[in-house]
């Protein structure tokens, strides 16, 4: 018995701490680093923007009406001013809060609802699962914007309704993914092993299936923030988002639409903010997917720091 262990493969050394390792890997992908830095700025703006610049960004100033981007009126006006002479840069900082809150709450809401339904549909692969799936199909195959338009037409556009509508249209994504993953994971041997030990359904789902499914769902949620933000700004642009005096970046673009020929910057900068945020989220999600895929991961690891 004693010589048995000595002949088997030695146990691998303890790995580097995972946080350290992730940071190392992040550093090797400069696009991902830039994305993370930009997202940090956006999150800071969303948290602090309204408190720091709330007043200043709403002050109407006829002298700076549609002022072009320059340093002439101080740093707040580097990106120019809108039709009421309000500094666009500060309005971007303030608008970040609503934009992010709407997107993130809708994503969290749809993720919770979608995942829960997906687990039910995947674990109980019977009539109930089928009904849930068909409902998801209805939502999925229908243009979400049209659906949102009707719902916001029937109800009224307010912050809660906008979040609700955005969340409902995105539920199928999580539902389908969670269901597919649960269907696959529940057939894995370690779940069967726990099952024949006598584990309760709750235990099987919570201890064994959930941890295997969550990473995929979190990656999708990251991508979804970008998607929902774009959807919300479309709604705002069409005038069905949250209503003034509250505003998001999408609403800022809509305001600038009428001055396109004379003051392009009013509509331009909020769009840049939306694009960069969405792109950073996409880059980050891509990077997470790359790191969590052992087949692809060497591409990052193989890159020498000097290479870039």
């Amino acid at each position, binding site marked *: 018995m004693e010589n048995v262990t000595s002949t088997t493969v030695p146990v691998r050394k303890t790995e580097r701490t995972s946080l350290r390792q992730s940071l190392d890997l992040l550093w090797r992908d400069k*696009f991902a680093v830039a994305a993370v830095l930009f997202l940090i700025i956006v999150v800071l703006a969303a948290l602090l923007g309204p408190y720091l610049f709330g007043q200043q960004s709403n002050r109407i100033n006829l002298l700076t009406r549609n002022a072009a981007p320059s340093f002439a009126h101080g740093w707040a006006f580097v990106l120019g001013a809108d039709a009421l002479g309000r500094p666009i840069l500060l309005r971007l900082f303030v608008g970040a809060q609503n934009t992010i809150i709407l997107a993130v709450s809708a994503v969290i809401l749809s993720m919770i609802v979608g995942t829960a339904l997906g687990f039910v549909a995947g674990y109980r692969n019977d009539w109930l699962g089928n009904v849930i799936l*068909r*409902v998801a*199909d*209805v939502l*999925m*195959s*229908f*243009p*979400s*914007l*049209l659906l949102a*338009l*009707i*719902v916001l*037409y*029937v*109800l009224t556009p307010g912050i809660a309704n906008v979040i609700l509508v955005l969340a409902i249209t995105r539920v199928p994504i999580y539902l389908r993914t969670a269901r597919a993953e649960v269907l696959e994971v529940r057939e894995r041997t370690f779940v069967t092993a726990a099952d024949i030990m006598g584990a309760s359904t709750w235990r099987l789902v919570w201890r064994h299936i959930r941890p295997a499914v969550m990473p995929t769902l979190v990656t999708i949620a990251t991508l979804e923030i*970008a998607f929902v933000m*774009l*959807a919300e*700004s*479309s709604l705002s*642009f*069409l005038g*069905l988002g949250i209503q003034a005096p509250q505003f998001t970046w*999408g609403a800022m*673009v*809509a305001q*600038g*639409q009428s001055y*396109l*020929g004379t003051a*392009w910057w009013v*509509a*331009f900068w*909020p*769009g840049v903010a*939306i*694009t*960069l945020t*969405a*792109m950073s989220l*996409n*880059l980050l999600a*891509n990077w997470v997917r790359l790191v969590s895929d052992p*087949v*692809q991961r060497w*591409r990052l690891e193989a*890159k020498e720091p000097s290479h870039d």
Partner: protein
Amino acid sequence: MNTYIVNRMVYSAISMVGLIILVFFLARLTGNPAELYLPVDATPELRAAFSQVNGLDQPVLVQFWRFLVTLLHLDFGNSLRLERPALQLVLTAFPTTLILAFSAMALALVVAIVAGALAACAPNGILDRLVNVVSLSSASLPNFWLALVSILVFAVWLKWVPTSGTGTLAHWILPIMVLFARPCGLLAQVVRGSMIDALSSAYVKTARSKGVRSRSIIFVHALRNAMLPVITVAGDQMSGMINGAVVVEVIFGFPGIGKLMMDSIQYRDFAVIQCGVIITAAAIFLMNVLIDFAYVALNPRIRFK
């Protein structure tokens, strides 16, 4: 007939019925649909008369049955605003949207397949990084903003194309390009990913061991397999195309279904909205069935189960 296709068609039909139920109950959600169907300034007498004529004082299930019967007769009611049958309005507007969506989708597929496949041939190469960054950014662009910026640059500053309206071929260029950007970016990402998977698969290794030429390995062996996930995503994108079409048609003043819906919402013309939703849904379901056929045609594992 293939069981897979039949099942998918049955599912689509069930989904269609589900959508009709959804639309019906959404309309009832406000309490009295008369509020929705009638103009805001309608008199209480008018409202009462409307309710009675349409049986709105009857139980919900009876109302639903009536609703279904009128649908089966393709009777969606009249537009309040234009005083013409809603169906007629929707069917007039539909071709414009279809042409927009199809041209943009076809273009997006072609560009995405070529760019994604070339990028996947040398992962991490210069071309791959370029395709990756460009496709990610075009997938991240808000289309209403892209539309405004392109009008500004190409119509206002450069004066190459008209700003809005229809008529000449030049009117179509910007709307199609704007509609094309997002799906193309997303699809290029999918093509690239599934091509990388396909090129590292065992059957590609077998082909290399057989001495198959590399052009044939990429375009015959890998691409055909890589197309399967691409088709699925392209199918999901079709409903996204309609989303884009709403925005694009509003901005460019295109008389498509999206513009019609937005105008109807502004004038609270519920009959048209309801009709537009159901017809759009039917078109998308039809589209999905076509996509299922394409999927089965490309995948013998489903064809011969």
